[in-house]
């Protein structure tokens, strides 16, 4: 039975009590789609009655939409049952490298839901939203101080959008300065896939810097890329480097590399995905960064929400400040206001409908205030300590491709396990069986079978030790040669391994009647 559509199958199930099988056992519930439930007479909301006013839309009335219809208790049960099929940071260890799955304080949620924040409109008269503008202004200041980059624009909607904002800022700067010959962005091969995608979207060509040898950008490899077409690197507009990088390492030659880049007239875009290793302790502006995005949903604890909403403010050095997107929040005397359209003539423009993911701004500020200068420093130190502890405990069982110490995440590969026909995928799926979310797998691409582990600072030593024990147990099982189990995990989850080939070959992206 591939489809547990209750309405169709319930009758024959009922008639045969001994073989009753609808998938429900104990606390495990199957749940069908909303459209597969009986169509209720009335919806799950009671609305004021209509007066029967004659329509002034000038158009015919909407016919059947095709939506389901169920009562409120059915809706509640439906989504609560679905929720039980999800793993989350509140339920357990979530060492997803480069994603910073840290605790999401509920105070932040409470603050974002205050009437004065949730129920205000983005185009209300300025004098009626001074408190909201103050939140944004304060957040701009906190981010400026933490990054050492004094100009901040909160508008980008997520990390990738922040990248777009950053690279557009660089593009605009070169354009205004007449550097139209600068059309190349340097990107290490270890970079997030969004980096080259963003550069191309902004009309640049990308040139890859190889990091395969040491997991870091070496001065030599950098020079090779910088001077590839032109002896002075005149064609290079900038570089996109994540620091700490996606192998969990700090780019130790960053100062020298940045100096060379600046000499060639290029700007340094830093992908801020890994800021959690530095926050409160090291300021990117002090190692030469010109523009950087910050993932509020990583470093500053706004919830990932199963894939968003994120928020990706950019922090910018004075040299690029005139070109960053608009609007930013300005303070004049004691009054706050948003920049007007076109007020900063050289801005690369508006990137989103309104001024930003304001609800995320409130949450991030609430988190920052809770931690403060002292707490944030402890955040990065604990994050780095936790990752190094895992590295030290697992490096005999798993191949660690690059020399440490690491920053807030540590990288392993499946090199030792592959000899026993156990791959990174198997290791990840076995972790699931043992009640943990896997690390990031098969990324970065610079090593084969990558496993990137980021414990974050919100884990206790006990939690780390349990992860270490499970990982050691998996390594031991692999060495024993009896690996069939490892290929078939997970077994205790609501679903077993899913057929991704089928999903992609015959894309079925929506429910359809009778399909």
């Amino acid at each position, binding site marked *: 039975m591939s489809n547990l559509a209750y309405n169709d199958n319930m009758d024959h199930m009922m008639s045969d009590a001994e073989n009753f099988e609808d998938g429900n056992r104990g606390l495990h519930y199957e749940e069908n789609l909303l459209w597969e439930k009986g169509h209720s007479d009335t919806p799950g909301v009671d609305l004021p009655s209509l007066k029967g006013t004659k329509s002034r839309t000038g158009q015919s009335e909407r016919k059947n939409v095709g939506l389901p219809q169920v009562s409120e208790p059915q809706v509640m049960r439906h989504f609560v049952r679905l929720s039980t099929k999800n793993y989350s*940071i509140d339920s357990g260890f979530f060492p997803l490298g480069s994603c910073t799955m840290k605790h999401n304080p509920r105070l932040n949620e409470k603050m974002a839901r205050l009437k004065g924040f949730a129920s205000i409109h983005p185009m209300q008269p300025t004098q009626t939203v001074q408190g909201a503008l103050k939140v944004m202004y304060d957040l701009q200041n906190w981010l400026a101080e933490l990054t050492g980059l004094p100009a901040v624009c909160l508008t980008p909607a997520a990390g990738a959008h922040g990248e777009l904002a950053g690279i557009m800022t660089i593009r605009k700067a070169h354009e205004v300065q007449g550097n139209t010959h600068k059309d190349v962005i340097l990107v290490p091969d270890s970079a997030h896939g969004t980096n080259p995608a963003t550069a191309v979207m902004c009309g640049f060509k990308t040139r890859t810097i190889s990091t395969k040898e040491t997991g870091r950008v070496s001065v030599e490899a950098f020079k090779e890329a910088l001077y590839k077409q032109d002896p002075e690197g005149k064609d290079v507009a900038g570089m996109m480097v994540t620091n700490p990088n996606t192998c969990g390492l700090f780019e130790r030659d960053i100062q020298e590399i940045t100096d060379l880049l600046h000499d060639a007239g290029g700007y340094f875009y830093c992908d801020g995905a890994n800021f959690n290793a530095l926050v409160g302790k090291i300021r990117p502006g002090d190692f030469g960064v010109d523009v950087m995005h910050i993932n509020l949903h990583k470093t500053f604890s706004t919830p990932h929400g199963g894939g968003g909403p994120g928020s990706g403010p950019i922090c910018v050095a004075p040299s690029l400040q005139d070109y960053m997107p608009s609007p930013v929040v300005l303070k004049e005397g004691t009054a706050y206001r948003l920049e007007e359209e076109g007020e900063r003539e050289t801005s690369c423009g508006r990137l989103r409908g309104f001024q930003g993911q304001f609800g995320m701004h409130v949450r991030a500020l609430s988190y920052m205030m809770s931690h403060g200068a002292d707490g944030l420093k402890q955040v990065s130190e604990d994050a780095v300590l936790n990752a190094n502890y895992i590295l030290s405990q697992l490096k005999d069982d798993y191949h660690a491709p690059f020399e440490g*110490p690491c920053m807030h995440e540590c990288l392993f590969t499946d090199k030792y396990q592959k000899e026993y026909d156990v791959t990174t995928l198997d290791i990840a799926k076995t972790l699931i069986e043992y009640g943990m979310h896997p690390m990031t797998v098969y990324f970065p691409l610079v090593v084969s079978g990558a496993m990137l582990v980021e414990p974050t600072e919100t884990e206790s030593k006990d939690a780390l030790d349990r992860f270490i024990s499970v990982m050691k147990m998996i390594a031991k099982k692999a060495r024993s040669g009896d690996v069939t189990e490892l290929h078939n995990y997970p077994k205790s989850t609501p679903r077993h391994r899913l057929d991704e080939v089928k999903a992609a070959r015959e894309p079925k992206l929506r429910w359809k009647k009778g399909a």
Partner: protein
Amino acid sequence: MRYLPQTKKGRSEMLEAIDVSSVDALYSDVPKSAFVKGKVNLPDHMGELEVERMLGAYANENHAAPDGPFFLGAGTYYHHVPASVDHIIQRSEFLTAYTPYQPEIAQGTLQAIYEFQTMVAQVTGQDVANSSLYDGATAMAEAALMAMRVTRRKKVVLGNKTHPHYEDVLKSYFENFRGEATIEGPQDIDDQTACVIIQSPDFYGSPENYQIWREKCDAVGALLVVVTNEILSLGLLPAPEEADIVCGEAQSIGLPMSFGGPHLGFFACREKYIRQMPGRLCGETVDASGRRGFVLTLNTREQHIRREKATSNICTNQGLCALAFTVHMALLGEDGFKHLAKLNHEKACELSDTLENAGFKVENETFFNEFVVELPKNSNEIVSTLAEKGIIAGLALEDNKLLVSATEMTAQEDIQTFCETLKEVCA
């Protein structure tokens, strides 16, 4: 330090296990000059109570929609959100989950996305929808980029009055083409046009006739993109089945206005274009035991794999916002969705009648829940004056015009107060 579980003892045991003397030794690769001396220049940590007091005071400085009569729309709308919606989206399992890359332990999120995609496709009259985009403005920009990929053409036509911010975003994105791609008006539709973008209802609130635009597009082989920033209008207006892409803003269902975000971009299109579509997609499949399950699919279009050849640089969707939409739509159901749309229209009719009875001229012949009214004085000043009287009047436009909207939140007394006060200040 309430969010940090490590203990002094634990820290020192771990340092010993790593075989370093201090945490700073782990930062040996960082240049000395980059370290902050002591602490950053910010306040130290605060307790929950202190944070609440401070942010609570900030919140109280704002005039919120429930504080008085409210008539502002223009791309963000003040609607009621049922209590169950907020409860569901605050459940840990949804709130604190990651993007569902491990489908065995993310079926909840995945099935909800599948339901979201189905609802958006149904509401827009399209074949398929993605799992959401940042907001309406970026969704419109992505639609333009997609049309350019599909047609291999580089001209985008704005057929009618779209939201000015949406237009600005499109212009910003297009600057990346360094003049090689252009944005034109309706007089410039020709065989180089990738798509014609129509907002409906348009920025001034008037619903569009799609058939006329479909014919114009067919004549030159361009795609028709329909944008709506009030998705609720599709409960009353016919589905834009003529379009190749329908996208826009869905904040109206399930989400507070929240000073402009997070909101919910939606994106739907014809089946033949799915591989050109931006954003994440969830698809149905089976698991190793043959049971129905859901996965993220067609990932190869995305930047993780295609890198510089990706369809878009977008990584996240607005996951939790899409969930809020899905829960609210589930509660509304077929009848409730249409009823709510009609209710909005009736409120707008009431507002229009009352304004006209008070002697103001309503410009729109047709509208859904928003329209333009002409004032005898500068509308910017009037908006400001009314704000001082606790009324959020609408959006001031050029030529003494005001864009006003009514929703199910608009009480009859609000309309009365608004019209009377408006008459006073215009006198």
